[in-house]
């Protein structure tokens, strides 16, 4: 056929198989590559060679908010030493243009997220032919999935974990969306192992992350919600009245009473006492309860593998890792208490002086302390009469504490951010994990390795990344050719270490059937006219659907539960949305989209498509 005749161009390999019509489609394609890391670099090379977006009409947009660092060079092959510190997307785009100078590429530095929807706006999305995800985290993938679903764009998803790679094709109306079937959650070590019986560094890091979060994020947040509305908080706690509520209150009380920090010196005291508690007192208590020669009920040695017998640490000002732990902990405690870190505190010798002034009370292990030893007997303490009395007592103490605080006092919760090397977060996590590892005689790790484990990062390597993008680009031919049925597409799971390569047809979307109608997550219902809430409900009830809740974005427009919402029934949906959501629908947009929760005639919840109301 004439279409397959080679044109003596660099694309003849493709033309002789797929034809010049498809080559033109590749050339004119409007493609969005999200991410310019390992996957992004490989994609750009493939797209440039394939001649994608290589005409004036075609356009390739690549976006990434990251800059190049040294360790990227080993798998992000479009980057060189001299590019370190530059924006990934820009450097990658320049390198791709060197492979094919016809490439029509636009490099942006915006993270794809709700905050950048003014950049990646409706018109941008509507012009796209296909989206290629080149991301490294699930949240961003979920976000792109949601956007592709909304704008009905094909999404070619891929990811790698070391030698493993997977690709998933998401094609409007033909396949399920990315978020429809998520990977099973990662296996985690049983809590008792993490809490008392770690036997590898992962356990120590899991514990460190959870302590970090508890001390610096969760507790400060609880403190703030108590302080913002003590009456409501107290009422809610009394109503719960259980052991968890009691523990939470105890945390808040500690935080505001004996652990309250006014000056940076207080933070050092706090950090030093934490060291004592975590790495000495707790270990002493554990080994008091279970001495080295303890036996289980069956007579076997209690401390047998994989359990490791812990030994307490004695704080030493000459041990750099001890002092660094105190530094990171006191600085972060200061941040969460709204205290500036004085310059002197960043000098080790000054810090050691301050630490030596901290009074350390002697620790005496207690009898009768219960420690969970088996993951099965996780008897969550239930509410008891005791709890109610203790809660009452705690609340009285808390109210007294609150009165002593400066007016308007709030804590500043810290959200763990692994990628900032100057924020001390990873220093504290690595310190916590390593001190604990030392307790248990486990090999310690450096900060970088701690970061990889704590961030659950399994690095990308060039081989699996190259393969993943190759597999996706084969599917890209089909997407851009158009008209392929679902059984032409292939998703993949591969592991180059085993080695294994499994390809399968993508799953179709779940079809919902109701009174002779059928729809999937890809469908939209649209209603023309500036209708009222009541008219919308009527429109649905004509379909045998009884709507009980209508929302617009995160704003609730109508819910049968709230009597005052009755007033809204007669009002135009667009007006209610404007009032409740406090934002105007942009001028260019003729519709607004509402999510409606419905029941069918038998009272069962039924997912219905998004409803677009064309009110203009």
């Amino acid at each position, binding site marked *: 056929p004439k279409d397959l005749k080679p044109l003596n161009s*660099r*694309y*003849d*390999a*493709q033309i*002789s*198989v797929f034809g010049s019509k498809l080559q033109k489609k590749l050339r004119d394609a409007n493609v969005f590559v999200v991410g310019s890391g390992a996957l992004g670099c*490989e994609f750009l*090379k*493939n797209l*440039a*060679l*394939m001649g994608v977006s290589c005409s004036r009409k075609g356009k390739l947009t690549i976006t990434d908010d990251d800059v190049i660092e*040294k*360790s990227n*060079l*080993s*798998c992000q*092959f479009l980057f*060189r*030493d001299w590019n370190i510190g530059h924006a990934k997307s820009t450097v990658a785009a320049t390198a791709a243009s*060197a*492979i*094919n*100078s016809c490439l029509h590429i636009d490099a942006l530095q915006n993270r794809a997220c709700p905050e950048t929807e003014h950049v990646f706006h409706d018109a941008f999305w509507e012009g796209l032919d296909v989206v290629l995800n080149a991301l490294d985290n699930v949240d961003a993938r979920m976000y792109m999935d949601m956007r592709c679903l909304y704008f009905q764009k094909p999404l070619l998803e891929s990811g790698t974990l*070391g*030698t493993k790679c997977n690709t998933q094709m998401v094609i409007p109306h033909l396949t399920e969306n990315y978020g429809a079937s998520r990977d099973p959650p990662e296996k985690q070590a049983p809590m008792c192992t993490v809490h008392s019986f770690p036997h590898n560094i992962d356990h120590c890091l899991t514990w460190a992350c959870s302590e970090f979060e508890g001390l610096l994020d969760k507790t400060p947040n609880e403190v703030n919600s108590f302080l913002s509305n003590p009456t409501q908080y107290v009422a809610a706690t009394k109503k719960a009245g259980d052991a968890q509520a009691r523990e939470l209150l105890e945390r808040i009380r500690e935080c505001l009473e004996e652990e309250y920090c006014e000056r940076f010196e207080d933070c050092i005291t706090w950090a030093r006492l934490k060291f004592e508690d975590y790495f000495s007192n707790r270990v002493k208590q554990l080994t008091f309860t279970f001495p080295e020669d303890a036996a289980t009920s069956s007579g076997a040695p209690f401390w047998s593998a994989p359990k490791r017998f812990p030994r307490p640490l004695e704080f030493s000002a000459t041990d750099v890792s001890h002092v660094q732990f105190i530094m990171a902990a006191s600085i972060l405690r200061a941040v969460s208490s709204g205290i500036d870190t004085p310059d002197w505190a960043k000098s080790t010798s000054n810090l050691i002086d301050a630490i030596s002034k901290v009074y350390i009370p002697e620790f005496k292990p207690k009898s009768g302390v219960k420690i969970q030893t088996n993951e099965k007997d996780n008897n969550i303490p239930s509410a008891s009469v005791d709890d109610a009395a203790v809660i009452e007592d705690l609340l009285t103490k808390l109210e007294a504490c609150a009165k002593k605080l400066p007016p308007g006092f709030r804590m500043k919760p810290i959200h763990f951010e692994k990628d900032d090397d100057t924020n001390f977060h990873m220093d504290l996590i690595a310190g916590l994990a390593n001190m604990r590892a030392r307790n248990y005689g486990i090999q310690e790790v450096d900060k*970088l*390795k701690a970061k*990889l484990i704590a961030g659950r990062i*399994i*690095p*990308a*390597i*060039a*081989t*699996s*990344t*190259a*393969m*993943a*993008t*190759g*597999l*996706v*680009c*084969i599917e*890209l*031919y089909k997407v851009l050719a158009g008209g392929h049925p679902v059984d032409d597409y*292939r998703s993949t799971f*591969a592991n*180059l*270490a*085993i*080695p294994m*390569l499994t*390809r399968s047809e993508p799953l179709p979307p779940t079809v919902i059937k109701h009174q002779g109608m059928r729809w999937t997550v890809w469908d939209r219902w649209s209603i023309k006219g500036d209708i009222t809430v009541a008219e919308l409900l009527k429109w649905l009830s004509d379909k045998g659907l009884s709507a009980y809740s209508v929302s617009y974005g995160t704003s609730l427009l109508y819910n049968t539960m709230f009597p005052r919402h009755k007033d809204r029934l007669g009002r135009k949906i667009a007006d209610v949305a404007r009032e409740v959501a406090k934002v105007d629908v942009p001028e260019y947009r003729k519709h607004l989209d509402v999510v409606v929760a419905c029941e069918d005639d038998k009272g069962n919840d039924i997912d219905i498509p998004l409803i677009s109301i064309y009110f203009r």
Partner: protein
Amino acid sequence: MDGGGGGGAEGELTAQETALYDRQIRVWGVDAQKRLSKAHVLVCGMNGTTIEFCKNIVLAGVGSLSLMDDHMVTEDDLNANFLIPPDESIYGGRSRAEVCCESLKDFNPMVRVSVEKGDLSLVDGEFLDKFDIVVVSGASLKTKLFINDNCRKRSKRIAFYAIDCKDSCGEIFVDLQKHSYVQKKPGGETEQQELTYPSLQEAISVHWSTLPKKTAKLYFAMRVLENYELSKGYNPGETTLSDIPAVLSQRKDMCDKMSLSESQIPTALMERLLAAGKKEHPPVCAILGGILGQEVIKSISCKGDPIKNFFFFDAADGKGVIEDIPPPPTAN
């Protein structure tokens, strides 16, 4: 994390190496990285597929990479070879190996990339002794057999790989001779394993009637094609669709001789391979180059199950399969 197995891992990595390879060391361990940095790789035949492979192992940090391909760069090389700048003033009058070498050097200053001039079909065993890994692409059956045979005759173990991409199909042949490695069990423990590979000659002379029914059709098709090229004295990829009648009669001869139904080698597949010539599809190059890259890393590091001994990929049916030919004797 690091497994033992064989020598060659002594000596420490430099600080610079540790910094650059930090990420991948998390995947395969320091020991594997040390072995990589001491490995010498020869690649003969520069095309889209081998260049993907070269990129992957240069990034991974092999000790040295030598490129052998005296052919002058032509416009045709641009279709899948992303290392050749599409500018005749740069590539004009220079060999593929030279132009690719220049680009590859930039990828990783710690890897010595160089050009070996000469004709692969004339090299001697001593030349091969310089290398631990030899990768051949786009060579005639005769040359492949010659090199494989020479690799096996040397006193040191030289791993041999042949890789070819035609249209959207690909074949990888692996001969590791005797290979012992550390296998990771599902539970996380490791176990020492040893594999014995057949030579290329053994792998292609097996009687077809002894092969399982589900054997990849590409295995047979590639044998028909290379035998046809051999009989006509063609260089690989010099065939065109006009050769189809002669190729189909070659297919009939071989099928008759080895008691295989001709339907096991579809005419459409033969046509695709003939029409492809030397043309490669960039995504298929990326896939094959990725797989071969990891195979070579596994073979050097003695960690992970290697392919034994053929890998076939066909984008048309979306399948990638491993074949062990001749089939090892089974226990039952």
